[in-house]
């Protein structure tokens, strides 16, 4: 039944970040959320794996209400979901290899040899061969980001949540990551929820595109349709025109 958020409200203190947010993520598809900085995109992803709880509304993953899960049920759910953090969030006391292997050890399904094999494979997918023994602090920002992606995909989860996987990467690597996301869908049937500021990439990979504005979905539909949208908020955002954008907001 995939991922569904229903009229979610989330506030931090006085700040209302999500205000009646609803979104259905199509199974075995790639749904992309775009939206201005600080609009609550990362917050949405964290809600999905229960890292934070909504104030109101419902969050569903596979017929399970995540916002009502507690304890070990929550951890069981998270085994099915891979999460690429916006700032990689690599464990800096471990090597890249150990970072990527972490989730595999926890799942406990693979032998030590298989884990090693899987780690190498995953790092190769993001073009990070040979850095297994390095520590995160020895890597560039872009390399860390890719290592974060490798850590999430290594698990072969049913769902993958990417928080700005391509921000700050060079064009070649961006294309590589885009292809990786597509391959996950095509070869493994993974359902993906992607946050990105890179509109070209969004158009390329998305099956479904949604724009977040003021705590709600302002517009959603197939990526090809967005160019024809009249809404000045959407237009202003995708054409990157501050004047148009500000007037509309």
């Amino acid at each position, binding site marked *: 039944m995939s991922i569904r958020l229903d009229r979610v409200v989330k506030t931090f203190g006085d700040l209302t970040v999500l205000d009646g947010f609803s979104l259905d993520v199509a199974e075995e598809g790639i749904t992309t959320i775009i939206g201005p900085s600080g609009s609550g995109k990362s917050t949405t992803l*964290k809600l999905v*794996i229960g*890292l934070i709880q909504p104030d109101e509304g419902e969050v569903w993953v596979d017929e399970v209400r995540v916002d009502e899960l507690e*304890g070990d049920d929550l*951890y*069981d759910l*998270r*085994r099915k*979901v*891979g*999460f690429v*953090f916006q*700032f990689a*969030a*690599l*464990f*800096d006391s471990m090597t890249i290899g150990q970072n990527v292997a*972490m*989730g595999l050890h*926890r*799942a406990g399904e693979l032998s030590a040899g298989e884990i090693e094999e899987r780690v190498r494979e995953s790092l190769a997918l993001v073009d990070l061969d040979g850095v297994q023994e390095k520590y995160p602090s020895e890597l560039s920002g872009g390399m860390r980001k890719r290592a974060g992606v490798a*850590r*999430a995909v290594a*698990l072969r989860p049913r769902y993958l949540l990417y928080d700005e996987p391509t921000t700050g990467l060079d064009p070649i690597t961006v294309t590589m990551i885009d292809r990786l996301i597509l391959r996950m869908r095509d070869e493994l049937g993974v359902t993906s929820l992607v946050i990105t500021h890179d509109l070209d990439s969004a158009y390329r990979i998305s099956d479904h595109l949604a724009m977040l504005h003021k705590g709600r979905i302002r517009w959603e539909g197939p990526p090809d349709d967005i160019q024809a949208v009249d809404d000045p908020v959407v237009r202003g955002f995708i054409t990157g025109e501050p004047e148009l954008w500000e007037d509309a907001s």
Partner: protein
Amino acid sequence: MLASSLQAIGRTAIRGVGAVGQGGHLAVGAVRALRKVDIWGPLFVPQLAAVGVASVPIALFIAAFTGIVLAIQASYTFTGTVPLYFVGALVGKTIILELGPVLTGLALAGRVGANIAAELGTMRVTEQIDALESLAYDPVAYLVVPRVGAGLVMFPVVVGMSMAVGIAAGWITSLFLLDLSTPQFVRGLRLFFEPYDVQFALIKAASFGITVTGVGAFFGYTCSGGAAGVGRSTTRAVVGASMLILVLDAFWAAALL
């Protein structure tokens, strides 16, 4: 003016109650996480090393100098009516009952507590704790339990060694700097010795171990606000653990002596 000070008082009170609530929550979480041996088990030995073994040098250093100072000051105080062998009694009794556990505890509040708060705080603000959760690791089981467990196990061990070294240092000082013979020192040492004192010291040490590591873990785990936040958490961990050690010290004295 009045309203704003009232507000300040109110906010502090709410924050205080909130912290106690959060602390309790973390403690309950830690107790629940105890059964997840598969998560914390592999990390226990490294933490025993980090919390305990690595603390031995500083603890013994402090103990040695405490013993030396106590012996000299005791002999200075006891000139005249009190026989000099009382140096042994004073060194032994003070080190076992009070200075061994408390000075070690305070030193390790700085060494271990700050370390844990800074490490966990950094992991919190860089989302590494969220990352653990996303990989289905219970971060309390992964981070808090092995540290607090190591504190519980290693503090008594370290304090036991400290007491021995402190007394030995006092004895060597008496031998070389004061005109005291070994039998005299030992006589004083044994004069008021109760085996219960050692038990008492070890109970205290274990409670300090939980306190130092637990307070460090709490402030690290609940850290927010970037590098400045990590700094704040670290300071709070050291100050909080030190204060709690002294309060606990008084509590044990009242409860067990």
